[in-house]
């Protein structure tokens, strides 16, 4: 298929964004959880780092809700659900085989019961997301479809890295990867805003809030 509707473009872009958000979030969670093992209250700092409201009663409540509460819009499951929702309407573009990895990622996250081996179980979710993306790259012939998903991923990565106040090196790398995708994409975008983000990242003191604003207005 060489033709894509406007709605599908939107779905592809948000599929890329949400799958990246889940992927980066779980990896960050692994690092954060490692600290929480000895220092349960670190979850408060973790919420601050992610700029999400601390609506949790305590460490246990945080662990359960942040991972599995679909009504918590910042939880990993709710972000994965949004990736899934965008994926669901793309079956004939991505193929059932590709889609099945997203389905399994959701099923695995929903099925987590044993919070003692949480990291092990969540590793499977990460693996399936990576398998989904690899399958998409391998199975989907349409270059534009692959490119739009990757553009969504790169945009999300830069956005989330800025929110996490990552260092200049990480941000520069994310910026270069996004630039590469923007140039390959046929989608209209605001080049000025992208250049502004690059300049902000090169400033001695990075204005993260301002940079996030411009990232959100590139597309």
């Amino acid at each position, binding site marked *: *298929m060489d*033709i*894509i*509707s*406007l*709605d*599908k*473009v939107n779905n592809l872009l948000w599929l890329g964004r949400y799958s990246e958000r889940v992927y980066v979030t779980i990896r960050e969670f692994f690092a954060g959880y490692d600290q929480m093992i000895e220092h349960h209250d670190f979850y408060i700092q973790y919420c601050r780092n992610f700029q999400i409201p601390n609506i949790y009663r305590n460490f246990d409540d945080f662990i359960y809700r942040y991972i599995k509460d679909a009504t918590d819009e910042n939880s990993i499951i709710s972000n994965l659900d949004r990736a899934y929702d965008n994926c*669901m*309407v793309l*079956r*004939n*573009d991505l*193929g*059932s085989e590709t*889609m*099945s990895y997203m*389905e*399994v990622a959701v*099923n695995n996250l929903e099925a987590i019961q044993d919070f003692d081996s949480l990291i092990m179980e969540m590793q499977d979710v990460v693996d399936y997301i990576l398998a989904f993306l690899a399958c998409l790259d391998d199975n989907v012939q349409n270059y534009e479809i692959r490119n739009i998903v990757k553009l969504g991923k790169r945009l999300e990565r830069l956005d989330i890295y800025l929110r996490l106040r990552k260092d200049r090196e990480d941000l520069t790398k994310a910026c270069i990867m996004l630039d590469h995708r923007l140039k390959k994409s*046929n989608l209209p975008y605001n080049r000025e805003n992208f250049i502004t983000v690059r300049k902000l990242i090169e400033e001695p003191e990075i204005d993260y809030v301002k940079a996030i604003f411009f990232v959100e207005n590139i597309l």
Partner: protein
Amino acid sequence: MKQGELSQYTKKTNQLLKRYGVKFGIYKNNIFHEQLFPFDCIPRIIGKDEFVYLNKGLIQRVNAFLKDIYGEKKIIKDRIIPEEFVYSSKGYLVEVEGLMPPQGIYAHIAGIDLVQAKEGTWYVLEENLRIPSGASYPMIARTLCRRASPMTYVQNHVEDNRDYAVLLKETMDYVNTGGINAVFTPGRMNAAYFEHAYLAEKTGAVLVGPKDIVVNEDYLYFKNYTGSLEKIGALYRRISDEYLDPMTFMEDSLIGIPHLMEIYRKGNVAIVNAPGNGVADDKGIYYFVPKMVEYYFHETPILQNAPTYLPYYDEDLKFVLENFDRLVIKDVSEAGGYGVFFGNTLSRDEKEVFLETIRTERRRFIAQEVIDFKDLQIQDEDGIVERKADLRAFVLTGKTTRTWKSGLTRFSRNPDSFIVNSSQGGGFKDTWILSR
């Protein structure tokens, strides 16, 4: 085949079906839910000769009536079917009068529901000539069963049913007026969305929603995000007639395509299945199908209807009133297992109200003998049990008319129920047609 061996794969295959998102949607208390369609690994098995017989009988039942009823109406003029039965049918569309669809085909895909009585006779319960669904389920189930238990297919000679998409594509290609094939879905919240997306994927058609297509200068187009337009030659629509075109049918339909009927009338796009087919799968018209076979083909109908009574006729009304307790009554305007009442399950008061309704709305109901249809074995939590099951056979018409060598076997999971519909908790099986 040793069925006990095969049944051990039910759990494994259901896990695979979950993995591939094989679900259907259902509304409960106005909230949309998606749920898995429970699959049972023990197939319905139809022998080669039996399929030859079924194929002949099924092919007899499609197509001739619609061409006549929207054309010359010979069957009415010759008083085979009372005209009020046709014109009062909710499925009859005056807007289709005199309109010949591309290649003269109305029922491109017919889903014919059958049951087999205990002594072996097959009965047709109803024809679905509008947008019959369900073929995708046995199609994907077979793919996954072959993964779960490859030896089963080494040891048994089963016709491959994974060619449904090929048959469907050939049908669409045959009627295509020039352009791409598209599957038109109302959206993800439709009960059969999985099927829409899966069939689009497997036929190589584009899956389109209401916002993706437009009528422009007498043709139907898919709107690319770049602004370019791609002509559509065949539209496999999965929405009902009344929503199809707000300029012709329901004017407040938000999921329709304005002016679609205008270009259809000009022969510039094929609509699969054709609008107006509802008149032929009306439960009241069903009564006349054996007469149609005799009238149009001068042949004896091969497949029988379940014994059916039309309260519209005085004699039948009398019979229905006298034998109400042993009949099943169906509201002709309902579908999906709804509007079906077993006479012996109603209380005295309910029965009185019902009888009065039948007396006053004689066109609204049909009554049928309850066929004690054959139970099939299914794998339950408690082991292997027997449950009621029907068969939806799919007959596709393109250059030729063919019955798909498989079908959707649906079963009731409730031991006391004859209702097999997925929306009412039923499960499904694969249908094997033996090749030897």
